């Protein structure tokens, strides 16, 4: 049964399995700090693009999703052993930082680099 699933795994040269628009992928999304309620103390940047990951993690995880081995196993478990074990989810894989300039309550001005603030790519895990 694993072999029947494995035979459907597309290689890097093959086309993606399923309609691409539904598959796990990175979505561009921009917010202002005003929308987050933080504009009274954040000076820069004006806009922030955290992005998000959304889409189906199909039973056959396509090449290039950077899914760990565990996700592949969990898919097999869900498919072949126990459906109460959930399928992997579409979540960020890599992040990049942003620099923020803000005013502290005592009037000090702070420049700070915050790690992992923007999703750069997605994975199923």
């Amino acid at each position, binding site marked *: 049964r*694993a*072999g029947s699933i*494995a*035979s459907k*795994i597309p*290689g*890097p040269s093959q086309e993606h399995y399923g309609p691409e628009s539904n598959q796990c992928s990175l979505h561009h999304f921009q917010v202002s700090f005003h929308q*987050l*309620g*933080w504009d*009274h*103390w954040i*000076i*820069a*940047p004006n*806009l*922030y*693009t955290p992005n998000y990951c959304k889409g189906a993690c199909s039973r056959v995880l396509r*090449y290039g999703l*950077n*899914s*760990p*081995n565990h996700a*592949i196993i969990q898919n*097999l478990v869900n498919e072949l052993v126990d459906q109460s074990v959930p399928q992997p989810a579409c979540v960020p894989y890599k992040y*990049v*930082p*942003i*620099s*923020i*300039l*803000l*005013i*502290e*309550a*005592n*009037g*000090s*001005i*702070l*420049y*700070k*680099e*915050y*790690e*992992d603030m*923007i999703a750069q790519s997605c994975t199923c895990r």
Partner: protein
Amino acid sequence: MVGQPSTAPLAEAPTSPLIWELLEEAPGKQQKKPQVLGHPMRYMLELYQRSADARGHPRKNRTIGATMVRLVRPLVNVARPLRGPQHIQTLDFRLRPNQVTYQLVRAIVVYRHQLHLAGFHLSCHVEPWVQKSPTNHFSSSEISSSKPSLLSKAWTEMDITQHVQQRLWNHKRHGVLRLHFMCQQQKGSEGLELLWHGTSSLDTAFLLLYFNDTHKSVQKAKLLPGGLEELMERDSSLLLQRAR
């Protein structure tokens, strides 16, 4: 809590490190945005523009040398005239307790070395304040360099990293760095006393503290080279064998 924003989502994840930092640093939403104008704001805006692009991405070629820079403004002190042509303004910089996760890498005092007040030209410099010390001067080991500031020719930056680290940095409570901002008129002394009335709020100096984060998250390990994904590149039959 003082400084806690009223935005509800922040309260839902109190254990998130980012949320705790933001709760500590953000002024309360009901407060007005603290007004910081003048040279300190201009300096930090220029620092930000040199270090990050318009979208906030840190520039790859940035030379800031730190992941966090705090500009500390002095507490307001009134200048007191001395005999002769010198005036001293006492500047107290309140320092937050040392956070273990941040290492101080540099401390710079930026001050006006040239001041023009009501037509008078003043030369100024900064000295440390040490209680009951006969000679209040930075020793040669405590300062490493002075150089013109990027703000303007009238401003100078002086590196006092060693001075701050030796005297103040390992404290667990709020500490105060006290400096003397000393000015003297270049020609004559008439009228100097009148000049300093109301100059307590004059934008004369500020402190820059550069930190590196010592508690960065460990870089995630790469996927095992012999993982299933690599095998899929070669032959699905190999995958079948592994599944068995």
